[in-house]
């Protein structure tokens, strides 16, 4: 078939796909295929498009590449595997299944393999348990770390069983964590490696020598993991035998490995092929490490400056800070005038991380930051942009932590309606989760059903024994007995108003947005059973002059079709300027008469806005300030986030115990209502 014929046919099949506009390119892609293959592709793309146009489009796009690896029969099986995934799990997993051709082939050949995505949540939590500082996990071409992120291969099929592959993943993650924890990058390795013209060979040797040393370190601290590593790698290659005793000694450092590198490279020895091999990228690791050190020294110096100014005119203010190392535990304390000082959490974490990186504190870290001595990297923000013609509905101050003052009337808030959806998403959610919703309702009714018994009532359904005994006693002793002798059941009045603030920033596009909408459906169903007053607002925006607040459900709105259509219409918009949204919604919440007021934020990341100004410390400090203001008005706040790397700033921003980090966005719909229940029992 010629390109224009193909284009016509594809057009007919895929007209509903959002990618429809690039049909021409697609036709060009399929044109070189033999006729038989073209027909095969058109057939299966058509079948898939009837389920979901976008899947049909994807199949056609991938087909030329897939057909080089699969015969016609297997091609059909590949399409059906994708459609199965759609039926069971939805669009995104379907697309992933189709893209993962290697995985499909591995299954077909009966090889047991494990995908990174499968073990990621479990491994991330595990590494967080181990780590002295936050480490992220990402998929990469091969296993390595830049000291802040651990990269692991997309898929592992080395082991005989899936379980064995899972353990290999764990072993790789442990070795890479050990590189960051036991000082592999404490020396500028790049400079050492430059001595050898056969760089690749030297790098391989070094990686292996370090693996020996680090395995021994892990073995000493965590014997269970030591066994895991030993099982994963088997016996050490014979070539390494001479180096083992020194590398495995408790006082071995990366310098020991370098000495042996020198030994092997001078002898011109070829490194053995290892069974388990994390790689090294010393240049990147060194850069990331130095950036981190600079950042952390700055954090520490700022904290010390704050401590110093808090000490005020006291004699201590004249003293300088010193560090004391506890040799037994390896922890370092900072002293002022001979007394240990308590650092804020962020500074404490920076101190810990610096000691990990450098072994000791550099002297410059102990000099408090002076006035203007440190300018954070955030550049000044952009001027007013996209100013709307409509007058803003409200203006709010914003906290500038660098000035230590508010910028008056800085943010312009516009209350906007949500463009209602057709309600299909909500209907589908209610149908799909029907059993779960029923269960949720029962659980919430149980909370509501806790009636209270009021004693000493003038009338009621039961006799109050305590009151009766007293009355008898009073009568005996000649006093006038009280007539209030009854108990009455009272419905428990929770007197609680909850505001849900939903992140509608661009980063929520796709599955986060889906999860948020599903979670809100569950929440509404549950809260209707509970009877608490609640409201749902979305927020997004673009710079300080356009902070949009979307009303999805006001406190006075009933959970009806209009609200359901609004939930349906929640979509990913622009940025996340959190502070102003909190301030605006705080006003609405404060106007409620309830005794307890709760603000729940749903978010997928840290505060952010267009330009660099709001990103980073500025946004976090402003958000924190806005929450403190809310707190002063008697409003408690809580944050539910899927930002797995949110630990570091959330504790500072929200306060301890005021946030939950979900490791998997898919859990949001199942967990949100329960989190709310736990917050309010």
């Amino acid at each position: 078939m010629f390109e224009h014929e193909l284009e016509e046919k594809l057009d007919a099949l895929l007209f509903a796909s959002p990618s429809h506009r690039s049909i021409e390119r697609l036709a060009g892609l399929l044109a070189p295929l033999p006729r038989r293959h073209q027909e095969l592709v058109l057939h299966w793309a058509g079948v898939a498009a009837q389920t979901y146009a976008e899947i049909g489009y994807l199949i056609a796009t991938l087909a030329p590449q897939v057909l080089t690896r699969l015969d016609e029969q297997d091609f059909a099986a590949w399409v059906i595997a994708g459609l199965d995934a759609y039926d069971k799990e939805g669009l995104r997993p379907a697309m992933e299944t189709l893209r993962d051709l290697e995985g499909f082939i591995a299954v077909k050949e009966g090889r047991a393999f494990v995908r990174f995505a499968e073990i990621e949540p479990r491994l991330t939590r595990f590494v967080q348990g181990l780590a002295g500082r936050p480490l992220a996990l990402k998929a990469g071409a091969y296993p390595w770390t830049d000291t802040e992120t651990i990269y692991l291969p997309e898929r592992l099929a080395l082991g005989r069983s899936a379980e064995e592959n899972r353990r290999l993943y764990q072993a790789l993650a442990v070795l890479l964590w050990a590189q960051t924890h036991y000082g592999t990058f404490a020396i500028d390795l790049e400079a050492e490696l430059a001595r050898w013209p056969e760089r690749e060979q030297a790098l391989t040797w070094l990686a292996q020598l370090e693996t020996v040393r680090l395995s021994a370190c892990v073995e000493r601290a965590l014997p269970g993991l030591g066994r895991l590593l030993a099982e994963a790698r088997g016996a050490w290659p014979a070539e390494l035998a001479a180096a083992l005793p020194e590398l495995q000694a408790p006082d071995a450092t990366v310098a020991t490995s370098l000495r042996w590198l020198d030994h092997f490279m001078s002898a011109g020895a070829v490194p053995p092929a290892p069974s388990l091999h994390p790689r090294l990228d010393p240049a990147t690791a060194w850069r990331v490490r130095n950036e981190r050190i600079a950042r952390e020294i700055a954090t520490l110096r700022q904290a010390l400056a704050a401590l110093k100014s808090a000490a005020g005119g006291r004699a201590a203010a004249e003293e300088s800070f010193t560090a004391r190392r506890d040799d037994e535990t390896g922890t370092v304390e900072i002293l002022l005038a001979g007394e240990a000082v308590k650092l804020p959490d962020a500074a404490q974490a920076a101190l810990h991380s610096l000691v990990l990186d450098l072994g000791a504190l550099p002297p410059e870290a102990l000099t408090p930051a002076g006035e203007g001595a440190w300018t954070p990297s955030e550049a000044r923000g952009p001027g007013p942009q996209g100013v709307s013609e409509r007058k803003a509905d409200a203006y709010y101050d914003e906290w500038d932590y660098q000035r230590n003052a508010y910028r008056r009337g800085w943010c312009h808030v516009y209350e906007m309606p949500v463009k209602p959806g057709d309600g299909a998403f909500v209907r589908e959610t209610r149908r799909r989760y029907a059993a779960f919703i029923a269960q949720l309702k029962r659980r919430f009714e149980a909370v509501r059903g806790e009636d209270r018994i009021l004693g000493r009532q003038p009338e009621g359904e039961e006799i109050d024994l305590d009151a009766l005994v007293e009355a008898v006693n009073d009568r005996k002793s000649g006093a006038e007995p009280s007539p209030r002798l009854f108990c009455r059941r009272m419905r428990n009045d929770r007197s609680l108003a909850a505001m849900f603030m939903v992140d509608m920033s661009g980063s929520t596009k796709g599955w986060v947005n889906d999860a948020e909408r599903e979670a809100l459906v569950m929440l509404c169903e549950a809260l209707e059973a509970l009877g608490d007053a609640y409201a749902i607002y979305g927020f997004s925006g673009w710079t300080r002059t356009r902070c949009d607040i979307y009303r999805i459900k006001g406190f006075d709105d009933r959970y009806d079709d209009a609200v359901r259509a609004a939930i349906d219409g929640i979509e990913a918009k622009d940025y996340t300027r959190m502070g102003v949204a909190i301030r605006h919604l705080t006003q609405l919440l404060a106007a409620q008469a309830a005794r307890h007021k709760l603000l729940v934020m749903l978010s997928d990341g840290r505060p952010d806005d267009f330009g660099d100004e709001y990103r980073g410390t500025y946004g976090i400090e402003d958000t924190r300030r806005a929450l403190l203001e809310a707190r002063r008005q008697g409003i408690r706040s809580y944050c539910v986030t899927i930002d797995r790397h949110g630990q570091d700033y959330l504790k500072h921003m929200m306060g301890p115990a005021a946030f939950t980090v979900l490791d998997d966005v898919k859990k949001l719909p199942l967990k949100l209502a329960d989190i709310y229940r736990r917050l309010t029992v």
Partner: protein
Amino acid sequence: MTPTAIKTITPALERLARAPYYQPVADEVALFEAAAQKRLPVLLKGPTGCGKTRFVEYMAWKLGRPLVTVACHDDLTTADLVGRYLIVGEETVWLDGPLTAAVRNGAICYLDEIVEARKDTTVVIHPLADTRRALLVDKRGELIQAPDEFMLVISYNPGYQSVLKEIKPSTRQRFVALEFDYPEPELEARIVANEGGVDLEMAKKLVKLGELTRNLKGAGLDEGASTRLLVHAAQLIGAGMAPSAACIAAVARALSDDPDMNETLDDLVRAVF
């Protein structure tokens, strides 16, 4: 009505015979003694199972005073603390509640997890916690002036997330507040070894496990393993259980019901042993 017209039962309170095991962490013992000397009430803050209750027991023994502990719950009323009338045969008697008994006996009254109690209990707590140091037993029309030895101690866990369970500023500002946390690893290992009856080597591994779980706080766990849980695990090991089985039962399963989180906790247990 006179209080003497009716027979009154006041439970006799005993002093602790043996010194409870307690490892001081910082200057909490000296602070508590100073507060006791100056007749100030004390608030203990800290996560569950970090040794608050044991500390109060230890201080009661050290000061030679009886101790009355009340575990507060959401149905705890003023009457439960102050006392109530009972009918015994033909006779009406008054039974002192734990708080009244403590006041009369010059004891330390420890209200554990005070935020759980009903709000109306503050009516009796406030006058005892400021310079008045008096307990009003309104049913008897009696005002009991607390002797110098009486001391009010309350505790709460700031890690609880419920909006409905907060200690009011008007209450908290009457107390001297001592903050508790899990002890430093060295010290915690000694505590686990001593309380759990295992050697120091094993205790250090258990403390390591504790640290690893505490790294997960906020990422799926509300709280990491408490010292108490580690002691439980040590006791199971002392009774002959395999360390990993003991830790899975006493630590991992005690921390979470979530299957995913349990997997991670099991991984951490296996990492340590």
